[in-house]
């Protein structure tokens, strides 16, 4: 089981958390056409490697935060708060 480091509560077991999928997705402008809107809703990079994603400490403090995690090794490379720019580890 992965241990994830909640920025507020410290390291906890993975099953206290819920993964909210890819983070840093920009909502398109109001005038977006169907293609842009579809890409925003459904299309993801789905990398085999470092993935920037958001998690929520659902059975703990309930807060959302960002993580850079490797999708093959599951190694957590960085934990950072919502609104913060991605760390260098995620820019591979």
């Amino acid at each position: 089981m992965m241990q994830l480091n909640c920025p507020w509560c410290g390291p906890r077991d993975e099953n206290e958390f819920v993964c909210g999928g890819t983070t840093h997705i920009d909502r398109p402008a109001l005038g977006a056409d169907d293609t842009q809107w579809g890409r925003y809703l459904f299309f993801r990079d789905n990398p085999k490697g470092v993935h920037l994603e958001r998690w929520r400490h659902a059975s703990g403090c309930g807060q959302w935060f960002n993580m850079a995690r490797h999708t093959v090794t599951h190694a957590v490379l960085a934990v950072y708060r919502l609104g913060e720019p991605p760390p260098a580890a995620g820019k591979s």
Partner: protein
Amino acid sequence: MRYSALALLRGALSGHRNWPPVWRSPEPRAQYDVVIVGGGGHGLASAYYLAKNHGLSNVAVLERGWLGGGNTGRNTTVVRSNYLYPESARLYDFSLRLYEGLARELNFNIMLSQRGHLMLAHSRHDLESMSRWANTMLMHGIDAKLLTRDEVGALVPALDLSGEARYPVLGAFMQPRAGTARHDAVAWGYARGADRLGVDIIQNCEVTGFVKDANGHVTGVDTSRGRILAPRIGIAAAGHSSVLAKLAGFSLPVVSYALQAMVTEPVKPRLDTVVISPGTGAYVSQSDKGEMVIGASLDLFPSYAQRGSFGVLQGVLGATLAMFPSFSRLRLMRQWAGIVDVVHDSSPIIGPTPVPGLYINCGWGTGGFKAIPVGGWTFAHVLATGRSHELAEAFQLERFVTGRLIDEAAASGIAH
């Protein structure tokens, strides 16, 4: 050679020393009419139907590892067609009907066992949605029936129906024609069938890039065994679809997750049907060897690691033992995961991609095994003719722009 009782007898008389290899292992040629990337069930079935239905035998199947070593060898072997929407019902029942004739067609025993598939209702609301579901299936001409609690008890005596059961069972919804098939045999049967029709099956050949002409039309692939040219290329790579799509320069509405399964030590016959409890996220059947085959729900975070996390394992075993207390002393022998390609509406994508000449068969998510025959049949059709098969028309990539999704989240069986 054709397998038969006589062939078996001949083999026995010569001490079983002269059986020929089931398929060739040719060197890749420089050029083919069609190249299929991915030697799992869907890729092999596509190659078989390209040759059989469309007369195209100058075809290669490229597999990075070994045949059927991905999800084809990692699933829980369940076949069924209990889907809700008409497009899916047609698609999956066509697949089940192909499975029903497949051993004869391929002259290869796929060990299809139509032992029935029971979905347990743990609440009155489950019962109501299941009666809607069963009625919809009957209207589509697919077998379905609702069972009372007593009927469930008669069919599955190992199930805990006592008042103390952690998850009370109120009834069940059953597809009698559903069941299991041997997953390796499906891959090997299609491989042998395709090979006999002239298809080259090339293992240990990883695609590292796509070759395009000045107009952006795909003209071939670069592989670990050199460049192979083909005017039409099909991707059937399940959990690795996004990786190949990225190499080709487009993205997909796919997220890859690990889906776990596990088997216990073999025991005498105890369970002669497939039992799934969607509410608790576990399903169980007993293999012909006697192992209890237990399937879990998804590990709900993106992953390309072919192993599952312990949290989900704990949950699924807890749910299984709550349903079947007598399994508590069985030892678990193996546990593994396959990387599944989940899309938002739990329905497949079978058709062209934004790259001309490049086609994709993906998005089967947690339920690709049951769909191998129809996935191959419809993918071969679009690869050979450039037009969608009528069964696959609704399952195109553009539905993620038009919004015409076919949301089979419930019928896909296990929690997403």
